[in-house]
């Protein structure tokens, strides 16, 4: 197993770890905002790690470029949808009064 393959595996594994963390947060956190917090932050990083790992694994610059686009688009979609969900939640009065 070459160094790059080891690196790729490590990246993929850590990416999965972030996804697991994000999912646990989604399931366990109490309200919309903390769930969004857990989901978007952890998943974006997880996606980045997995894309990098896959790019390393493939060893092709073209595929690396495509994966970069995938990551950016995922990032954008996550940002905007997170914003919209949070906005909707605020409007509909789900914001807890500050303790």
């Amino acid at each position, binding site marked *: 197993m070459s160094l790059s393959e080891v690196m790729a595996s490590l990246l993929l594994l850590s990416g999965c770890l972030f996804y697991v963390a994000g999912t646990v947060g989604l399931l366990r956190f109490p309200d919309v905002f903390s769930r969004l917090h857990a989901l978007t932050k952890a998943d974006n990083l997880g996606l980045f790690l997995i894309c990098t790992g896959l790019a390393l694994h493939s060893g092709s610059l073209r595929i690396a470029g495509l994966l970069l686009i995938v990551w950016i*688009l995922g990032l*954008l*979609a996550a*940002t*905007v949808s997170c*914003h*919209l969900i949070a*906005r909707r939640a605020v409007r509909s009065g789900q914001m807890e009064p500050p303790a």
Partner: protein
Amino acid sequence: MIGLAMDCVLALGIVFLAVQTVRSRSLFQAMLMFIVFGLLMSLSWARLHAPDLALAEAAIGAGITGALLLVTWRRLQAEGHDPVESEQSAPSMWLTLPTAGAASLLVVIIGWVALQLPAVPGTAGELAWQRLEEVGVSNPVTGVLLGFRAYDTLLEMAVLLAAWLGARAVATEFRPGALPGPAHAEVPLVGALLSLVVPISILVAVYLLQAGGSAPGGAFQGGAVLAAGGVLLCLTGRLEAAADTSGLERLGLILGLSVFSLVGLLVMAGGGPMLALPGAWAIYLVETALLVSIALTLVLLFAAAPGLRRAS
């Protein structure tokens, strides 16, 4: 070994989501479960070496169908649909047991028959691989869709057209609130995202179209991606419902079906067999027409309005 484990996880996930679609009390939750079910199906197509299907399932099966379900849900709610009604009380045992019994019996029969019937050699699929070059494309699925079984694809476009005609026929008079409305129009982030995503959806659609000859992709996947861009424009109020279908829209709706038929008829008029597309250029011509019709039909079905126009 890892592959097998992944297949097991996927299969379990698919079955779990199917069960949830049927069992969850809230109809809304069931819809969400179904949409995720579509996404996992798409992954399983990829595992089964059917990337064309993975693309189609993700774009059409999960994406467009999901959007249609959610927007219908929203329309039902907007019209005062009582949310309580969406809760399904647990059906009685007398109803559940026989249907479950019948369904499991059928499952056993399907499994048993599928294992009993031997896969025979010399199938249509093997022939398709052997004679793929004669069609002029190297992606076998495109070869079957536009070459060997082009007639199916043509009638399938008629089905899509019929769905739009039917939806228009049963719709009542034009309702201005047919679209979900510009709820998020004023959010600046959405505008920025749109100006990026809609051009990308066009780009991806064109890419999928041209890739379809040699790689996974084609008119259906491309059309669905383009339709997704249109759906976004509707959702954000960039496109709004018009009271009538414009001439251009009408032309777009029938473009795929009529170009496909006319090319086929022209070939026949020239002495060839009906629907034998003469080479790759004809396939791309037909696929482009199909893409336009598919995208437009899907967006209009989503909008549930006779037509669309740019928001003033």
